[in-house]
């Protein structure tokens, strides 16, 4: 099990970045500033960073003192951090042509603002205003903020992250504040909700970094250093600076590193205390008392990750029957069969099981997180499958419920309807596979199986209600993806709005359920009679049911009806999209001497809908 209290020397002894990252995620070891800097040097010497993150900071208080903590957080994540601090106190000027920020071309633009930057009236007591006036002020603040973000959004500033410095003092009306209809704290809470909605709705690739949450985590007295605030306009204690930096860099991780999708869990000493095969149902620690309550709490946290859109899988060296019994019958077990998209309960090596889970789920191993208490299993997986992120369950039960909280890749930048039901979709897929095996056993062929699914495809064009999901599909899809072009919501919104671009998506329904939005094509009309296929991708969970072909030929038919005579497409190979290497020629595209593919719709019409076992409808 992971050492509960590693020393600074233990950290310096770590041999790989992955190992050190896992230890830092699980143990919350305090670090002094010189220690943090020594750790950065150690990490830089271990292995070169894998990605570069350009962080532009626009601020109305001193931000440069964050740098050592940002460097630490970035080094732990394997990011080479380049930072630009705008001139002090200058904000909207940075959103103008030729500003330092725009020249820097950031991946993330961080706005570190104080509350009164939003409106001069916020420097005065809020309680002087009646409820009506308070509402007006909030609307005004929101309008100004939308204007400010809009100024930045006109330019290439990457992901905008807004953070407001929390109040250094208790609310205006003191202990009574929360009860008053003039409450300052309630006003700010409402504003935060409104800002969140504003940034989320507009598809602007903008986020709010909730520093109030950091205050909750460490306490106001530990958050502000009043000496530095009043003497140097720097608000944070080292503890606060480190935690805020960690969160900022986590956002960078989500932009730069491969997406995590699956959490593979060991069972004994991870989901419960003890060993089911030895201790039995009555002997394992899982229930209302210590230490069983910590394991119940951990399972409860795992359900949160499932809500974020991560799928859970089980990988345990056990007798399948013993494990089944806990999942089905233990009164305090929260995770049941339906919560796991797949499982491997056997005596084979965990690495082999992870490989076979990746095949079953049709997901890359670099999207896997492996959680296990055993030194040996963790080391073996790290060694054989370095692309899997390994987290070792802490040895003290009280540390287990929060052991995944600092894993940056388990954060999300958006939440879609598909995320909330993802495991259910994988469970559907498992049932489809079972039906397929069954049909094949009966000697029937694949066509009969596909027909028995009674698939219906719903295609929609330029559907901005799907915006978050469409951007997410370009970000996450690696295998069935012809060009692997990544777009954020803001860029996607531009395609949807532009008359010379067409964004087509589909969802698929069959007897087992609804896929959610699972395929996307982006078409660029380069002139009146020619179009280019900028993007064509399918989520892995709908591959292999003819959906890819039905979608392509339906789309080509639609383009033909719009008088498009030729469609040009590309296959841009990556390490992961070998699957679609021959997709274009197989469907009827001709390979051209310049390496691109072309279909002359005037000469050869696409295949009719009846060629596929899927009924297609266009949603208008």
């Amino acid at each position, binding site marked *: 099990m992971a050492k509960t209290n590693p020393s600074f020397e233990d950290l310096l002894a770590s041999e790989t970045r992955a190992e050190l990252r896992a230890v830092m995620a699980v143990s919350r070891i305090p670090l002094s*500033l*010189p*220690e943090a800097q*020594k750790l950065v040097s150690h990490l830089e010497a271990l292995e070169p960073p894998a990605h570069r993150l350009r962080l532009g900071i626009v601020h109305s208080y001193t931000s*440069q003192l964050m740098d050592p903590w940002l460097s630490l957080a970035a080094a732990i994540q394997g990011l080479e951090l380049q930072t630009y601090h705008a001139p002090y106190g200058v904000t909207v000027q940075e959103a103008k042509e030729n500003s330092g920020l725009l020249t820097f071309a950031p991946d993330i633009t961080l706005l570190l603002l104080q509350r009164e930057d939003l409106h001069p009236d916020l420097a005065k007591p809020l309680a002087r205003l009646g409820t009506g006036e308070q509402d007006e002020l909030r609307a005004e603040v929101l309008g100004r903020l939308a204007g400010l973000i809009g100024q930045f959004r006109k330019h290439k500033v990457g992901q905008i992250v807004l953070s407001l410095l929390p109040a250094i003092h208790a609310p205006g009306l003191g202990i009574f504040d929360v009860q008053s209809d003039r409450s300052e704290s309630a006003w700010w809470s409402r504003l935060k909700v409104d800002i969140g909605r504003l940034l989320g709705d507009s598809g602007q690739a903008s986020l709010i970094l909730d520093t109030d949450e950091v205050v909750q985590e460490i306490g106001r007295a530990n958050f502000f250093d009043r*000496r530095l605030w009043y*003497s140097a306009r720097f608000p944070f204690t080292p503890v606060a600076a480190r935690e805020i930096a960690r969160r900022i860099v986590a956002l960078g991780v989500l932009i730069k590193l491969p997406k995590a999708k699956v959490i593979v869990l060991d069972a004994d000493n991870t989901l419960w205390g003890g060993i089911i095969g030895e201790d039995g149902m009555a002997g394992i620690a899982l229930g209302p008392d210590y230490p069983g309550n910590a394991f119940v709490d951990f399972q409860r946290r795992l359900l949160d990750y499932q809500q974020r859109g991560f799928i859970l899988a089980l990988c345990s060296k056990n007798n399948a029957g013993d494990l089944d019994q806990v999942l089905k019958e233990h009164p305090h077990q929260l995770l049941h069969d339906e919560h796991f998209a797949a499982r491997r309960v056997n005596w084979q090596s965990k690495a082999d099981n992870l490989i076979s889970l990746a095949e079953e789920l049709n997901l890359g191993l670099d999207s896997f997180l492996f959680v296990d208490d055993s030194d040996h299993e963790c080391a073996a997986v790290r060694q054989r499958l370095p692309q899997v992120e390994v987290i070792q369950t802490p040895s003290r039960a009280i540390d287990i419920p929060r052991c995944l909280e600092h894993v940056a890749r388990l954060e999300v930048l958006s939440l879609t309807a598909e995320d909330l039901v993802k495991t259910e979709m994988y469970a559907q897929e498992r049932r489809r596979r079972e039906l397929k095996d069954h049909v094949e056993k009966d000697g029937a062929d694949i066509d009969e199986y596909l027909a028995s699914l009674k698939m219906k495809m719903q295609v929609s064009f330029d559907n901005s209600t799907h915006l978050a999901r469409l951007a997410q599909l370009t970000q996450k899809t690696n295998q069935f993806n012809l060009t692997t072009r990544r777009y954020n919501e803001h860029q996607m919104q531009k395609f949807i709005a532009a008359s010379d671009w067409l964004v087509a998506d589909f969802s698929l329904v069959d007897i087992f359920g609804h896929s959610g939005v699972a395929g996307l094509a982006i078409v660029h009309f380069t002139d009146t009679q020619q179009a280019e296929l900028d993007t064509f991708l399918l989520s892995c969970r709908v591959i292999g049911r003819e959906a890819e072909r039905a979608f392509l030929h339906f789309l080509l038919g639609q383009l033909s009806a719009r008088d498009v005579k030729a469609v040009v497409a590309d296959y841009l190979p990556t390490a992961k999209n070998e699957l679609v290497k021959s997709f274009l020629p197989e469907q009827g595209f001709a390979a051209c001497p310049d390496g691109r593919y072309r279909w002359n719709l005037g000469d050869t019409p696409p295949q009719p809908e009846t060629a596929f076992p899927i009924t297609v409808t266009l949603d208008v």
Partner: protein
Amino acid sequence: MSIFRQLQDVIATTLKVRPEKITETTINEDLAAWDSLGHVNLMMALEQTFDVFLDVEDFPLLISVPAIIQYLQDHDIN
């Protein structure tokens, strides 16, 4: 380790300068990195390393190696 050696290590690490650049007589103006921001970082680093609480009034006084050593000795820190 003597106070000076510890201090030398803290200053070198915090301000990212070579240890040999720091002597028992170094003052802030000798090191380009010991500017106003570097100074704030150094104050934080001293507090955490020597487990001492510095008053904001002391910040502008602690601008040389001898001043810092004197301060630490006056406060029985070694």
